Every structure is written in structure tokens, then in C-alpha cells.
């Protein structure tokens, strides 16, 4: 196997932060709906986003708390 055939280990497996993905997706959706749907309820959208982020923060906090307890 040549060096060219070897995988680029410097380019590691890229995993995405689900919270960041969600935040970006919701922002994109907000922009898209605002631009395309006059009756779009932006407040409802933002409330839903806030709810999800709050739940995700809570879950993340719980995991961090467990991790801190161990380390």
C-alpha cells in the first residue's frame, strides 16, 4: 500500500455537535420560513428552539455532572 493509498489520519473522523447542528438548522429554517411564508409564527418557532436548547442544556448538564463526579 502506497502512502497515497493510506487514509489521511490527520483528517480524523469528524463528528458534529448536535446542539450546534440543531441551532444552525433552526436558524436556517427560521430564515427560510420568514422569507417564504407570510403567516409564519416566528415566536412559536423561537419558543420551540428555546425549549429544545433548554432541554439539551439540561441533558448536557446532567452528563457533565456525572462526569465531574467520576473525574
Amino acid at each position, binding site marked *: *500500500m502506497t502512502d497515497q*493509498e*493510506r*487514509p*489521511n*489520519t*490527520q483528517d*480524523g*473522523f*469528524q*463528528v*458534529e*455537535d*448536535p446542539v450546534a*447542528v*440543531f441551532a444552525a*438548522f*433552526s436558524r436556517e*429554517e427560521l430564515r427560510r420560513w420568514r422569507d417564504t411564508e407570510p403567516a409564519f409564527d416566528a415566536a*412559536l*418557532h423561537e*419558543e*420551540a*428552539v428555546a*425549549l*429544545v436548547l433548554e*432541554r*439539551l442544556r439540561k*441533558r448536557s448538564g446532567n*452528563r457533565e455532572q*456525572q*462526569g465531574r*463526579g*467520576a*473525574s
Partner: protein
Amino acid sequence: MIIQALQAENLFKYKKLSLTGLSPRGRILLSGANESGKTAIVETLCLGLFGRTAALEADQLAKAVKWGENHGSVTLTFLGPEAQSYTVSRYLDSKGHCQASLSRTGETEPLAKGVAAVNQQVQALAGFGFQHYIETLFLAQNDQNGTAREETIQALAGVAELDGLTHAFAEEIETMQEQIAAGDLHTASLQEELILLDLREEALGELEEERRRTQERAAGLDRDRQRWQQFADGMQQAATEIETASNRLLRCGLESTLESWQARCGGLEQALQSMDGVCHANQVEMDSRPGEGLRAGVKALQPHLSQGAAILARVAEHRHEMAIWLGEIPGKEGQESLQQAQAQIQTQVQHALRQRKRSGVLIAFSLLGAALLGAAGGVVQFQEGTELARSLTMALKALYAGWDPSLVPMLFALAVVFLLLAVNGVAQSFGLRRKIAFLEGEGDALDEQAEDARQRVQRMDGAAREPLARQVAVLTRLTGGEWLGELQQWADGAGAALLEETAQRQLLAQLQGQLESFQQEVAEDRTDMAAQQAAALQEQQLLGEELLRLESRIAEEQARRQQDQALRAQQAALGVTRQQLTHQIAVRGVARELLQGACQGLSTRFNQELRRFITRAAPLFTQGRYQHLRIDERLQVAAFSTIKNDFVDFDEISTGVRHQLLLAVRLALAQALAARVGHDPQFVVLDEPFVFFDRQRIRESLEALLGVSDQIAQVWVIAQEFAAEMGDAGDLRVMCLGEEDSLQVEQGRVR
């Protein structure tokens, strides 16, 4: 996570197992024949980490204890986050009882005790649990597809967290919809209750208005009763006063004075006026005026008394004038009195006496003059030439120079004049005597008159202290009063009832009768008033009962109204709750859509990354023959066959190539897990990954293992054997021998 040491006693086939000083980077090659204990090592590793193994369920752990032993133990040391070393120890007996503890390596104080706490802490430190380990870091020899369950893939992709939230929202939406349905049912039942309640908005007002009117009527009756009572009390008081006054009047008799009659009659009249006032001021509009007879009697009696009183007043006035005339009391200036009359008479007498005295002197002087003048004239006339006559002529000439004898008649005339003067004086003196006698007679008469007056005054005074009858009798016997006739007339007429016993008895009897009539009238009026009061009281009691009934109905209506309000409040609250729930459902619906979209994006990109990584890793294990792979969303692999010049399904590929591709997939999953939990180095366990590999492929695959990723640092590989040319000097080679129940490796050297 990197395994630093693995030590166990009485587990699986090993009485004692000890792998220490394990390198954090490199291959650990476990080889040996079948049943030699290779898999037992990685099973012990798994048992140490998670308290269970790939082959044994949690309730089968007693089987991990070496056959014939009562208990076993494992101590695993690993590098966790931030290069911190931890030691987990587990103890289990043949009955399946387990104990566990976790501590930082070198410390005696455990971080966690007990199986559950230790498992939780190990998972937190590793960043993955048993299932993820089995499906990503551990490639079992009987694993035929190499892929993980969807849940694990989702966890690796980061979707699990969002997907879990999506499901949580779905459950919440379902719960909220159930709550809305339950709330709707409740609202409907409340509406039925409201319909049954049938509350009329104006009912309470009507009842309260009826109560107000009833209360006003009751208050009016109470006022009427009080007025009746006040009238009755006032009438009773006035009646008592009238009875008292009447009895006092009735006690009048022949021994009573006119003042007494008048006072008592006046008292009765005043009492009757009080009764009139009471009757006039009564607020119950009762047409009652008892005592008309008494009023008539008093009215009839009053003029007699007034007339008599007027006459007696005139008597008293007469007596007063007499007293003033007698000088007993001072009178007004200029008013004639006895003393003045007496003084006037005395003065006149004195004056007459003085006049009479002067008249005597005049008479004497006149007589002397007449004698002297007569004698001188006679001497001069008839005794002329005498010495005496000469002396007289000389004296006359001395007195009157013009005297001559012819003037002798003048002397006689003068003597006559003197004589006339004397006569006049006598006459005057006589008249004065008569005047003095007259004045003295008048004085005597005045004295008599005064004495008479004194006696009359005395008798008047005496009579004034007597009862009316005797007073009138005394007065009628007096004389000289202008009032006497009137008094006599009054005594014979109007005053007879006061002065005569029979007439008086009739008068008093008549008054007595009128009093009794009055008392009867009062009694009847009071009976009427009592009846009115009783009727008012009875009506009041009925109104009281009506008020109680109304109060009860009002309280009932208020309770109904409160119930209505409470029901409507509940309905409103349910409406608000429904609105909130509907809103929350909408919020969660939007959240789910966003989460699903984000999940889809995450999955897509994770799969792309996974495919990218598999595509890069697969040629390492296939000598570059399968560089073109197609991996679908379910990670099903299709390889491009240069022979068929097309993609062929996984099942169509040879078993050897299939295992090579599975190894690539598994390493990709391990890389994904390592990337997900952090960037610390990670160990993987590959149990018989090269079973269908030829030696060349084994050798190349072994070489490729550590080149796949910087994070896959420690690779545990199990195989029947590893040829000497396989691997390199850095590998830890452990040969398991079936007949040995003890295996100890220290610092890479088998002991």
C-alpha cells in the same frame, strides 16, 4: 480509554490472570488454539469494565467464576479522560453476588462503590456503555455483519440525543393531548353541572329586593309598635295626671278656697291639655280624644271660677285701695290718702284759727281807734278851750299841718270807719268759728271713715284667709263696695255650685261621672292600641319568618352562585390550561420538526463521514482492491467489482473480503465512537478478525490497524496464531495455552 492492566483470579478458565504494564499505543496480540483462553481474556476485560461480558447476560455472571471456585475477582486499570488512571475492582461469587469499587489509581478512597454506581461512573469516564462497546470497539468472532444497531449509530452520529428529545416531545404531546381530552371531558361535565344548576342572573337581586322590602315592612311595623307604645304610654301618663288632677278637684269642698278651686281646676285643665297634646301628636293617626266630658265640665266650671275670681280680684283691689288710703301701704304719687285728707283739714283749721286771731286784733284796734277818734272829736268839739282841747288841737296840727277845727267831723267819720271795721272783724271771726267747727266735723267724719275702712280691711283680710264660702259670706255682709252687687249676684247664680253644699255635691258628682267616663274611654283606647300592637307584632313575627325563609333562599342562591362561579372558574382554568397545552403541543410539534430536520442533517453528514472513513479504510484491508464502495443509509456496503464492472451486494462478496470490509466498518465505527466521546486514545478489541484472511492479508491488516486512526491507539487482536513475521517488535504477544490456568504478563514479558 486505554487499558493499562488486567488482573483476575478464578474467572473463566484462569485461576490467575495478570496483564500489567500494557503499552498505551500498540497491538496486543492474543493467540492460541481453540479453547486456549484467548476470548476469556477479553471477556475478563469486558467484565472488569462493565460488570458483564458479551457472552454472559447480567444474571449469568456466576458462570464467569472458574469452575469449582466459590468466587472470582477482576481488577482493571485504565487511562481515562485527561490521562487520569483509574482502577475498577469487581468481586463475584458462584451464586451471582457481585461487588464493585472504582478509585483513582493509587488512591484508597473509592470514587464509587457498588455495582450500579461503579457501572455509572465507568460509563461516564469512558463516554460509552457496554452496548456501544460491544457494537463499536469490540468485534466478536461470530459477528457477521459488523454494523451496529440503529440506536448505536444514532448515538455515534449525535442523533440519539436529538432523537431522544424528539421522542420525549412526542410522549409529552401525547400526554398533553390526553390531558386536553380529559380537560374537554371535564369541561363538558362542568357545562352539564352549569345547565343543571340553571342559575338565573337576576334571581339573587330579586330575592334581595324582596328581603329589603320585607325588612322595611318589618321595620315600619316595629316603628308603628313603638309609636303605639309611645302613644299608649303617653296616654297612660296623661290619664294618670288627669285622674290625679280630677281627684284633687274632687276633693274640693266648702272648705276650699277659690284659689284652690282655680288651681285644681287649672291643674285638671292642664292635664287635659297634656292629653290633647298626646292625642294630637300621636303618629299612629288614631282618632282618639278621651275626656270630652271632663273637658266640658272643666269648661263649664272655669267661667264660674273666673267670674268669682274677677270679683274677688276687684275686692282685693278695693282692699288694696283702702289700704293705700289708710296709709298701710304706699300708694302712687298724687293718690288721695287718709293722712293727706287729715293734714289738709288740719291745715285749714290752723289757717282759720290764725285768721280768727287776726280778726280779734283788728276788732280791738278798730274799737280803740273809733273810741279815740270819737273822744278826740268830742273833746275838740264840745270841750273847746280846754287844755285838753288845746293839747289835742296842737297834737292834731303836729300830725297834720293843715288841721283846722273844721276837720273835726272827719274825726268822727274816721271813728265810724273804725267802728265799721270792728263790726266787720266780728263778723269775720264768727264766720271763721263756723268754718273751724265744720273742719273739725269733717276731721271727725274722716276718722270715722278711716275706722270703718280699717274694720272692712280687717274683715276682708280675715275673709281672704277663709274658704270660699265663708269668704263670700263675709264679703257679702260688707258694705260700700261696688263689687258687692256682682258678688251677691255671682253667689246666687254661677257661684252657687261652689258655695252651696247641694249644688257643690252635684257638681262634684258630675265631675266624678265625667272622670269615670274618661277612664273608660282611656281603657277602651288602650285596649284598641294593645290590639293594634298585637296585630303589628303578629305581622312582624310573620315577616320575621318570611325573612328567615328569604335569608335561607338568598344563602342558597349565593351558594348556587358561588358554585356557578366556581364551575365557570374551573371552566376558565380548564380553557386556559387547554390553551396552554395546545400552545405547548404546537411548540413541541415545531420542536419535533426542527429536531427531525436536524437529525436528518446529522445522520446524513455522519453517514457521509462514516462512508468517507470506511472508503478510506477498506483498501487497507483489501490490498486496495475495493477502493470503490457504496454504503447506503443503513450502512449496507456494496463493493465495486472490477470483474463484474459493477457494484455487488455484500452477500455476493467472498467471505474473506466480507470480513475485511466488516473490519473496516468496525474500525470506522470505533473511530466514530472515539471521536464522539473525545479525542483521548482508544482501545479496540478484535476477536478473530482474520479468520478468513490469508497470511498476506493478516500481515497487511495488522500493519494497517494502527494506521487507520491516531485515536485507535491500543488494538487487542485475537487469532489462532500470529506468524513471526507478522507485527513488529512493539507488539505485545501473548500465547494462550489450553493446559495452563494461569497467565501473567508483566511489562510485555510473559512469565
